[in-house]
């Protein structure tokens, strides 16, 4: 009985988790454009740091591409390194 209770609790907890998915895979984006600051901004904090993929659900390949795009955008001052 006790075990059963635990099991249902686990299910309940799981119900609150929204399934994360990689937006770039879902949309079949051919490549991540460093000039598209609107998209990039949704993957950085308000301080300007990049969000970890465990929070955004981005897959490893696209997270790497995203990192490169963010770095390029920062280089040419489309994004900031740090927002004070």
């Amino acid at each position, binding site marked *: 009985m006790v075990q059963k209770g635990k099991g249902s609790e686990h299910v309940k907890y799981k119900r609150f988790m929204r399934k994360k998915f990689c937006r770039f895979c879902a949309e079949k984006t051919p490549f991540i454009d460093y000039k598209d600051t609107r998209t990039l901004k949704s993957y950085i904090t308000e301080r300007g740091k990049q969000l970890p993929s465990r929070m955004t659900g981005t897959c490893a390949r696209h997270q790497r591409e995203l990192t490169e795009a963010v770095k390029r955008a920062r*280089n040419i*001052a489309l994004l900031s390194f740090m927002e004070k």
Partner: protein
Amino acid sequence: MNYYENIVILDAALEDTGIDAAEKRITDLIEKMQGEVLKHERWGRRKLSYEINKHEKGYYLFFVFKAPPEAIKPLEELYKVFDPVFKFMIIKLRKKEIIALQNSLQAIEAKAAEQPAPDAVPDVAKDVAADAVEGVAAPSGADA
């Protein structure tokens, strides 16, 4: 021949004639090095995300060109000594980016053939312009 994408930031205080001259000097050099300019856009004056050499604003020029790899060095040398330019970035395009570029060039051509284009503003330029307005309107949004 490689495909390159190049952003150049000019002094925002420059007059329009100065910008014309700078743009011409850059395209001339690319063509002199056997390159071909495929796209050039003016994103205009824009607030920089951070200060560069005491500049808070810059005039953004954007080029896409096809050129032999030997053309890049002279171009970088020009930017280093060319006074109106205070920041530049040249990026070599990869396969997927080249395919997307060719598609967009074809789309532009098809549109131009259909009707004399009423000075079409590219999507990216629109994005950037909207950004710039945002930046000016609420520069201290992140402070809170």
